[in-house]
């Protein structure tokens, strides 16, 4: 790798203010190790993707959540007396701690700071059994806020909503999806079923939604070559081929795996820039 490549990467880190984030030095070092192991056009693709990459740390969650919750229409909030918070999770993941739980707990701390929500009671439910029970009723003054930090391919939010609709009281009008970031495919799904969503950022596929033919085919081929460096790669182009370019508190598996899975060159294993652990 040459100095020009390092300088390009450092300029991106500076422009994105990533140099202010905790852990930025090890992320930078791991990116440099990766670039050292790539050919020139492979490295250029990674640099291009890093330019469009989003890195949101846990310390930024509070401000972003307040911003999202404040963006909900006043007339909608004026009608509400009670909001039930529920973490977005697949039914089979119930019992595990998912990112939606983190958002739920953060909302407890943020609630006193939300001036638009004075007089609205907040309740929390974390089990499907309770929320789908006949005892759980919703009326016109109730809303359910489904929480997560990231909506990826749409699979998890779809599974959550399908399960909630087993409670016949719950209608799309009662649901509001709160997520720090969302892949475009998720928002398309929510639009199609008429469920409102509020997010800080809508992301697109990193290669497919950015390049046009013939550059598109070329970039896909380059990424396929890069991914050959990943041992046992079961997430080619990200879970469900999401092609995401995002790291939050944790990097979602929707993100291109070269950013979060270790790679191998020769006999040596190299840590990923944003390891998932």
């Amino acid at each position, binding site marked *: *790798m*040459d*100095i*020009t490549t*390092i*300088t390009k*990467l*450092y300029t991106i880190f500076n422009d994105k203010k990533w140099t202010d984030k905790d852990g930025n*030095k090890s992320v*930078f*070092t791991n990116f*440099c*190790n990766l670039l050292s192991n790539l050919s020139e056009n492979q490295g250029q693709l990674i640099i291009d993707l890093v330019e469009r990459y989003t890195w949101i740390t846990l310390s930024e969650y509070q401000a972003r959540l307040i911003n999202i919750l404040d963006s909900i229409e006043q007339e909608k909030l004026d009608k509400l007396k009670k909001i039930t918070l529920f973490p977005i999770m697949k039914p089979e993941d119930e019992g595990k701690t998912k990112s939606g739980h983190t958002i739920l707990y953060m909302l407890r701390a943020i609630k006193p700071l939300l001036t638009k929500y004075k007089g609205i009671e907040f309740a929390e439910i974390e089990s499907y059994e309770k929320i789908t029970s006949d005892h759980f009723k919703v009326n016109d003054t109730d809303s359910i806020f489904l929480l997560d930090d990231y909506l990826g391919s749409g699979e998890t939010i779809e599974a959550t909503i399908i399960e909630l609709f087993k409670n016949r009281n719950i209608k799309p009008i009662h649901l509001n999806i709160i997520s720090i970031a969302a892949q475009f495919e998720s928002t398309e799904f929510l639009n199609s079923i008429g469920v409102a969503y509020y997010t800080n950022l809508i992301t697109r596929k990193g290669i497919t939604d950015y390049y046009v033919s013939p550059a598109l085919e070329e970039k896909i081929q380059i990424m396929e070559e890069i991914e050959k460096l990943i041992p046992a790669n079961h997430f080619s182009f990200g879970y469900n081929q999401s092609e995401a370019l995002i790291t939050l508190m944790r990097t979602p598996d929707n993100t291109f795996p070269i950013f979060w899975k270790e790679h191998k060159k*020769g*006999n040596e294993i190299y840590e990923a820039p944003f390891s998932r652990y």
Partner: protein
Amino acid sequence: MNENNLYLLLDVISRNGSVKILTRNGIDFNEIAIQTNNAISEGLVINSDKRIVLTDKGVEVLKHLALKYKKTNKDEWIERHLKSQIRKIDKNSIFLPRQNELTF
């Protein structure tokens, strides 16, 4: 950055060479990036046509530092690749390296 490392940095930039020589001298990637930015601020280096190159001032500084730091003894500037060295074998022996141990 000490003068020797500045010499190495400017030398790598002038040759458009690999940064490996810098990392082998204990300068990590973050430091290389920061010092390159410093060199840009000091007018030794510019980002010209998407490539980092030396300015006239940078060339002069490199020439000056080379008098002091350029290694002319080949034992110093060609490093022995000790990890590839094997123990001495008899001239009639046939040596077959393990494929998974080759790094080139």
